[in-house]
């Protein structure tokens, strides 16, 4: 019995959510009286892999096939199953992001293991194997039990604080025999948004709605985000009107985010918008209408004109940042 965790690398390196995932797997393993092994796919820096030890996963299996540098869910699933077999994994964990959400269900179906996606807690094994997860877009939680012997989980990023300890991991190469069909997906073109903080894993998010009146006013949102090191987001009508790119749209039909801080500026707080941001730890709402529904979901509020309040908040943030150094 052991725990396997799929750790994605971005061009050979790991991100904070990878360490969170490694630590999550290591903690589960420890609670079950066993060890966690990380699985790394595609080209990855050896030094990066040894870092995982600081988060409790001391062993790494590395499938170095360069074809894995691009996501083919089928090939990834095959590698996960091969690694799980090798170490006799009873718990298989991945991130609840686009890669994990594609691969983990394929693995679960293949080995007929129960899966819980978007986990936000450690398993409670006092009566079965029960994990807490978000449902209804963060409006509620469900406690779900897995009844199969092997369990598959995806962890919602930003659910646990990440604490580095001592330790280095050792990497071992794992050979997996793929066939052509596993790589039936060919990447033609990649367009990455460079420079900006990716929205899905941002801890701080500044978001604008129709209250900003038009794309020409987005400078104040970007300035505040830049001061804070935050990502930018928007409401759906803003993306639909092409004021902002579609990948920034959050809500029920857009992205679901769970930052530590969500600042909503000129957004009414419709239920479909809240569905994507409900899980934020702290919400600040800036709106000129004291009756805006968003205030009911907020921790802090400012009634006022976005075009006046936002630059003032930016000045205050700058002052705060300067004082911190």
């Amino acid at each position, binding site marked *: 019995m052991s725990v396997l965790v799929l750790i994605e690398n971005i061009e050979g390196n790991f991100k904070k959510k990878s360490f969170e995932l490694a630590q999550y797997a290591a903690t589960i393993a420890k609670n079950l009286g066993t060890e966690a092994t990380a699985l790394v796919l595609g080209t990855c820096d050896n030094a990066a892999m040894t870092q995982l030890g600081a988060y409790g996963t001391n062993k790494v299996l590395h499938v170095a096939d360069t074809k894995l540098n691009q996501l083919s869910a089928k090939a990834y699933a095959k590698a996960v199953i091969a690694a799980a077999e090798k170490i006799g994994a009873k718990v298989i964990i991945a991130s609840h992001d686009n*890669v994990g959400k594609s691969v983990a*269900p394929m693995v679960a179906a293949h080995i007929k293991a129960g899966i819980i996606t*978007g986990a936000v807690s450690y398993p409670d094994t006092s009566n079965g194997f029960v994990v807490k997860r978000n449902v*209804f877009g963060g409006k509620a939680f469900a406690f779900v039990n897995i009844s199969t012997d092997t369990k598959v989980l995806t962890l919602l990023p930003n659910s646990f604080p990440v604490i580095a300890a001592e330790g280095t991991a050792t990497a071992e190469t794992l050979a997996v025999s793929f066939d052509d069909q596993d790589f039936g997906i060919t990447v033609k073109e990649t367009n*990455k*948004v460079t420079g900006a903080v990716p929205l899905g894993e941002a801890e701080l998010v500044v978001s604008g709605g129709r209250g900003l009146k038009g794309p020409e006013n987005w400078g104040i949102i970007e300035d505040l985000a830049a001061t804070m090191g935050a990502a930018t987001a928007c409401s759906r009508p803003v993306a639909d009107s092409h004021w902002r790119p579609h990948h920034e749209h959050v809500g029920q039909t857009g992205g679901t985010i769970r930052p530590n801080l969500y600042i909503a500026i000129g957004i009414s707080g419709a239920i479909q918008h809240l569905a994507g941001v*409900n899980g934020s730890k702290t919400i600040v709402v800036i709106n000129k209408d004291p009756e805006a529904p968003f205030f009911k979901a907020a921790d802090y509020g400012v009634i006022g004109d976005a075009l006046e309040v936002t630059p003032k*908040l930016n000045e205050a943030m700058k002052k705060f940042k300067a004082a911190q150094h």
Partner: protein
Amino acid sequence: MKILVCISPVPDTTTKVAFTENNTQFNTQGVTMVINAYDEWYALVRALELKETGVATAVNLVTVGKPEADAVIRKALALGGDEAIRIDTESTDPYVIAAEIAAYAKSENYDLVLAGKETTDYNNAAVGPMIADLLNINYIGFASKLDVANNQATVAREIEGGEEVVAAALPIVVSCQKGMAEPRIPNMRGIMAARTKPLKVVAATGIAALTNIVSYEMPPAKTGVKMFTVDQMDELVAALHNEAKVI
């Protein structure tokens, strides 16, 4: 080319989420069921567009559920689609749903199976890739564009921090999200036509669930919003630092 669109009924988005029976059951009282937005606006509409442009020859809809799902699948048929299949079983565990759909689809030779990226109630995001595995075909998730020509699909998919355009030979499973198509509203003709379209009910193969929901919990209620005036931005920043501890 034949397309199968997976349709999930979900509570209307304005539903007030509440639980009964000591927080073990979702309270369905007064809840209107609608088509999951990703299935309707993106997967189904794109499938219909592919048929209208002559790329697809048939668009079939499938749902796993009890007779309560019929009204929702009729709404989907009102938008378009040739026939609907309801696999008659309770839909709770994603494996059961995927395995029942795969068991039905296996003998039907669909070239393209479209699902939504997730349901807006249980947010599993698992059924699409599970179907792909069970049919032993490739899966492309989080697609915002889909074109098919010469037995090959070209798909734009969301990746971390951007987008990627990929190509794959059919058959494949694709899960759909925003960008794929523009929402449509069913017209009177569609609604009338849907009444006479076939809705086949097939028996489930009886696959057992691998997971079960033990109970639900509501998040702690917000303690109330603390207000600041336009001239108190330093105070707001201080509260975010000292009190909320998020900056």
